[in-house]
């Protein structure tokens, strides 16, 4: 089994290094093909591991020691258990699809080889993240995906900075830096969590840490839980560290599909699921996690309602769905969170790839107000996106229905009706903005003609590559029972109470009703043509939502600008004017006293004799004083 583990893990790395060899050369199809094949290998190995875990049991391998100092001993150890196997399969599947898709999408890009190198490196980092058997190994992957995300968001680094009005993300390189730095803020929290664990447990291995949980004090567990969650908040873009995700849409669309929808952003959820023994021990923190998640769910959904940018809408929906996952994980229903994570990965990746097709067809135009009626020219894309949107909206029998519905059941079952209500409401909003997008892009009047676009369907193999995702977006939910059986081998089984069980039909109906309601509203509003009302667009709530609650501007005003100004003050006012000036001042005192005493050196012997006499007298006085004092 060791071979399989290493194959799954290192195949993407090999692909990345291979592509890197060609990184500075013009496009060679070879790199795309080789990396995609290696990803396929990794996927097959992951599936085999999934089967192995299902039928034999978890696999644990140790490659070598990494950091050994003092009592700290951190190996490169990899553990494939139920959760990891699921994550690996999801990651490698989506990655493989995205790789194949990128062969078409990046066809005309100068950085083709570079792109595949980064993309495969990302998959490797993500696999390290999910497979590691200790917290620091997870942190390697954590930072690794961060860097790859930085590289990929800033992939089109040559674009210049523009104002926020022109492009809310300013520029790819700006967005990349924002993402990296935001994640770093969270990483500090995570590091502190890791330090806390180390000094209180003495190890960072998952099994040792979780075995020690019952012996740790409550306050300590709370602290660890909170700090780890801060780390998760950064990577999963939870409020208040959420702004980078929408800006990250500056990256190529396959990147958005893979990193900023299906895999990397779910790392935070994975962390909470992975650390479930810890969070189970402190329900208070779990509840906090759930509240944050719920808040983000509706918060992000509200921003998606009015946005006109195709990718940003999907990004907000990702944010919103991450909120759902955190809500589930926080309430203790870890397998539900994982289930939604997997389902979401499939349909959200599909949605993004579909969006990529649209962009490709529309020459990188993202404004859905400039689209419309695309279903005629892009039939398959329309079908894929429709399926994905239905899944996202949680319509039976698509995957999203099963997962999201379960989350609502959990919220209801925990008697956290507030959370339930907000999530329920969000489900309606989700359905509305998803279908607002679909109707505006694919139905309604063909506005693109006014702008002189000539949309066309993408290559056939690209469409075929998307097929597995499309299929899974439909059928994944049907395997809920099997999934539960499998992952509860590791995660606690979550059973709803008798009362909730009775309520289930009503709950399902209510949820479905609001989802369908959302779709209907979208249909009514947008299916014919785009109606824009200046009055609405000028209203305060609309502007607040459209400007993302003015949070990016707020951050700029409250953090970025003052920091830059403070830095300038620190340099020019403090460092140069105070610290350095003091040093130079001391030097100047010496210099000037020397200059002053230089006059003694008149060259006149007579003067010297006078000084000498004065000195002798001074010494004599000193001698007398010394003697007189004993």
């Amino acid at each position: 089994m060791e071979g399989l583990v290493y194959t799954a893990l290192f195949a993407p790395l090999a692909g990345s290094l291979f592509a890197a060899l060609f990184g500075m050369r013009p496009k060679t199809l070879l790199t795309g093909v080789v990396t995609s094949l290696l990803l396929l290998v990794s996927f097959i190995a992951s599936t085999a591991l999934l089967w192995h875990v299902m039928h034999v049991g978890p696999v644990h391998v140790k490659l070598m020691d990494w950091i050994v100092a003092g009592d700290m001993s951190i190996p490169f150890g990899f553990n494939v258990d139920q959760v990891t196997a699921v994550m690996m399969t999801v990651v490698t599947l989506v990655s493989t699809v995205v790789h194949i898709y990128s062969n078409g999408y990046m066809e005309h890009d100068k950085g083709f080889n570079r792109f595949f190198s980064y993309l495969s490196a990302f998959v490797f980092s993500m696999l390290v993240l999910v497979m590691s058997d200790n917290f620091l190994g997870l942190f390697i992957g954590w930072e690794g995906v961060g860097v790859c995300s930085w590289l990929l968001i800033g992939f089109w680094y040559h674009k210049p900075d523009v104002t926020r009005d022109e492009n809310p993300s300013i520029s790819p390189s700006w967005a990349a830096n924002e993402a990296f730095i935001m994640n770093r803020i969270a990483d500090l929290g995570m590091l502190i969590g890791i330090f806390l664990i180390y000094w209180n447990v003495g190890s960072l291995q998952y099994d040792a840490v979780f075995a020690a949980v019952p012996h740790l004090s409550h306050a300590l567990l709370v602290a660890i839980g909170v700090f780890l969650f801060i780390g998760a908040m950064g990577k999963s873009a939870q409020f208040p560290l959420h702004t980078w995700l929408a800006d990250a849409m500056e990256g190529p669309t396959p990147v958005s599909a893979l990193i900023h929808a299906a895999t990397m952003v779910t790392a935070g959820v994975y962390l909470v699921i992975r650390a479930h023994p810890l969070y189970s021990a402190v329900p208070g923190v779990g509840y906090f996690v759930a509240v944050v998640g719920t808040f983000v769910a509706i918060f992000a959904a509200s921003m998606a309602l009015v946005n006109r940018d195709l990718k940003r809408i999907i990004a907000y929906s990702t944010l919103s769905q991450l909120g759902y996952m955190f809500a589930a994980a926080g309430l203790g229903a870890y397998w539900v969170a994982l289930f939604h994570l997997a389902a979401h990965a499939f349909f959200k990746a599909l949605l993004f790839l579909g969006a990529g097709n649209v962009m490709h067809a529309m020459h990188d135009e993202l404004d859905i107000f400039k689209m419309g009626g695309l279903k005629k020219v892009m039939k398959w894309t329309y079908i894929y996106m429709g399926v994905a949107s239905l899944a996202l909206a949680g319509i039976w029998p698509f995957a999203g229905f099963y997962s999201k519905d379960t989350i609502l059941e959990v919220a209801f079952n925990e008697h956290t009706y507030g959370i339930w209500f907000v999530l329920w409401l969000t489900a309606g909003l989700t359905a509305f903005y998803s279908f607002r997008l679909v109707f505006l892009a694919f139905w309604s009047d063909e506005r693109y003609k006014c702008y002189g676009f000539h949309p066309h369907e993408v290559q056939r193999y690209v469409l075929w590559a998307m097929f597995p995702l499309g299929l899974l977006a439909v059928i994944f939910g049907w395997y809920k029972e099997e999934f539960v059986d499998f992952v509860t081998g590791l995660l606690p089984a979550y059973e709803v109470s008798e009362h909730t069980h009775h309520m289930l039909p009503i709950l399902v109906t209510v949820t479905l009703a609001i989802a369908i309601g959302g779709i209907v509203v979208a249909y009514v509003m947008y299916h014919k043509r785009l109606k824009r009302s200046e009055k609405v667009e000028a209203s305060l709530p609309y502007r607040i939502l459209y400007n993302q609650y003015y949070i990016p501007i707020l951050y700029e005003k409250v953090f970025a600008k003052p920091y830059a100004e403070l830095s300038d003050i620190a340099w020019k006012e403090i460092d140069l004017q105070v610290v350095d000036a003091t040093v130079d001042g001391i030097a100047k005192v010496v210099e000037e006293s020397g200059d002053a005493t230089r006059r003694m050196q008149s060259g006149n012997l007579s003067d010297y004799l006078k000084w000498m006499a004065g000195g002798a007298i001074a010494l004599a006085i000193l001698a007398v004083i010394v003697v007189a004092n004993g």
Partner: protein
Amino acid sequence: METFAFYLFSILIAGLFLVTVLSRNVLYAMTSLAAGMVLISGLFFILGADFLGVVQLIVYVGAVMALYAFGMMFFDATGVVKERNTPALLVFLLGGLSAVMLVVIFAAPAIGSHVTPSFRTPQGVDNPHAVGLVLFTKYLVPFEVAAVMLLVAMIAGIILAGKKMDTSLSKISDGEESQAAGKEER
């Protein structure tokens, strides 16, 4: 009698030296200096240091003063130097202060009573005899060194005074050229 002699000598010496220091005329200064030296030898005789008194007379009054007198022949003895006087206040401040300090130090009981002899005067011999005994036993090496020093000083004095009028020392040591140049000038 001794007291009287001491005070007489003291006052005279101090007065003569003051003349030396304050006089505008170099010739007066030298004369009063020589007179002061003679009186100092008187003090030595009072102290019983006969040999030292004699040496004082011979060396200072005889040799040194003669040397000065001859030296002065090279200069324009009267008023070669128009001295710009140092501010009197500074002079008397420094001079007075140093006097006060020295007096304080020397008058302090610490000095007079704490000095103990490390080399006793031989008993039963007169002073020149005793000096001879000490000088040629304990101080033999310094004595010889002093002799060499005097020889060196004599040679140095001869050479320095015998220099050509218009060439500097350093130029001579520079080598043949400057010497030749010096000769031409002459």
